[in-house]
């Protein structure tokens, strides 16, 4: 068991998600950067698919009555342990019985992932332990953590290896690579020019369903579009011309024209955008996007 002494802004139990239920209107969801959660899991000796926490912008204060082995990956947050030991990112951390781990505001970017040796033992729903907030199911009672929650968890016993991981180097120049969307031809030259030449600011109303952007209006012919299946990363443009990038928990079908799609390799960067950040879009060819491999998180023993 882990006690949630103080909850963060939006702490969600996550695993790789539940792909395969799209025909029921259920998005795949799962960790916004599954490779980062998988790396954290490897640092604590877990299967990559074990459930951990996805922590957004400001983190919780957690107490580990029986101690435990944990690891953090992703954005750096202000962090402290009651033992006074340093809280390193990308390393195996061994917490003593009764120790607390306190995460404050994110110092850079938006999201981090906390893996716990043995994995959180919330019940799987439709094949996954991931929280789906729009559906109100999965994770811990279908919602974000609250103060007073007791998270089901049994610390695994056995040999502990102290490991370190090196995250893939991500160019942090504020651009997202996209491929042309299925309705790109519906947009006029002015709309395309605005979209590809202008910075767009991330709106505070953004969440895991979608990132709402503000900037020069992306104009398009007002066509009646049949509802179509959509993927996370799809950039929809509603009639007001302000783009929305569909997120991990977004709807599985949409009726707004899609001007572009953020490539899979850049979805981890989407996970780190916070309100007020600006982004620009740069287009690459489909074949180039398909050839891009996922970034590698190399793991090594701490000497």
């Amino acid at each position: 068991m882990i006690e949630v002494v103080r909850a963060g802004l939006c702490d969600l139990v996550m695993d790789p998600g539940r792909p395969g239920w799209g025909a029921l209107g259920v998005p795949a969801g799962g960790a916004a950067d599954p490779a980062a959660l998988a790396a954290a899991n490897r640092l604590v000796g877990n299967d990559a698919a074990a459930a951990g926490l996805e922590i957004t912008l400001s983190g919780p204060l957690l107490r580990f009555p029986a101690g435990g082995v944990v690891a953090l990956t992703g954005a750096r947050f202000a962090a402290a342990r009651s033992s006074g030991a340093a809280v390193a990112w990308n390393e195996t951390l061994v917490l003593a019985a009764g120790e607390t781990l306190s995460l404050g505001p994110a110092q850079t970017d938006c999201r981090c992932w906390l893996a716990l040796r043995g994995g959180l033992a919330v019940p799987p729903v439709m094949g996954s332990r991931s929280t789906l907030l729009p559906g109100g199911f999965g994770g811990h009672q279908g919602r974000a953590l609250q103060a007073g929650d007791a998270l089901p968890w049994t610390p695994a016993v056995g040999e502990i290896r102290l490991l370190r991981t090196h995250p893939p180097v991500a160019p942090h120049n504020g651009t997202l690579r996209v491929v042309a969307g299925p309705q790109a031809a519906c947009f006029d030259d002015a709309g395309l020019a605005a979209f590809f030449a202008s910075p767009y600011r991330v709106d505070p109303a953004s969440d895991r369903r979608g990132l709402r952007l503000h900037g020069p209006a992306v104009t398009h012919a007002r066509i009646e579009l049949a509802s179509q299946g959509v993927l996370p990363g799809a950039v929809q443009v509603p009639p007001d011309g302000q783009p929305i990038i569909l997120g991990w928990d977004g709807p599985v079908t949409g009726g707004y024209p899609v001007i572009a799609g953020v490539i899979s390799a850049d979805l981890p960067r989407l996970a780190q955008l916070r309100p007020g950040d600006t982004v620009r879009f740069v287009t690459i060819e489909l074949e180039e996007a398909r050839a891009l491999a996922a970034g590698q998180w190399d793991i090594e023993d701490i000497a």
Partner: protein
Amino acid sequence: MGKQAIGQPNPDAGWRWVSERGLRVVTGDTTLPRYLSLVSQNLPEIEDLIPADDSILLILHRGAPMSSALRAALAAPLADAATQTGPLHEIAVEYGGAAGPDLPGLARRAGISVADCIERHAATDYTVAFLGFQPGFPYLRGLPDALCAPRRATPRVRVAAGSVAIGGAYCGIYPADGPGGWHLIGRSAVTPLFDPARAAPALLMPGDRVRFVPA
């Protein structure tokens, strides 16, 4: 970005790439049989299949190439669609009043009485074309032309679970409380439309038929 290169269907077949791991298959009025055919073939590179209005989105596992088996599956002839209809669900509806505040407006728009509106809506057998918007939200095909209406200009912040609604050429039922932009005509007590703990989480599946019965 060259406009000539984008949004063009593959000339050889009714499919095109959507981002780097989506394939949109244009299916027209054969969406359901094509969907069922693809599901039955259980191809290993497919992570998910999302049927919609007149197309299916195939989501491939990241990095998976399009196999010859998948190309063959997309080109394969379809079984007779008439043999593939699902079970019939009779759903009781309380029409109008507080449960269906948009019914009078729809009747006026159609130039018919509210009673006539209800009668026409309940006289039709609907087919679940696809699910979307919310988990378990059915898009029902078969709405009489007179009852079709574009979505409300301003969506409601909260629509009650069970609300029966009209959006464009579709009828739908909201499985859960939430925002919604469709015209509300009544409420059903069919509960729950979606329950993630059930073996079959969605009560209504693509291909199922629905008949509304005035309560």
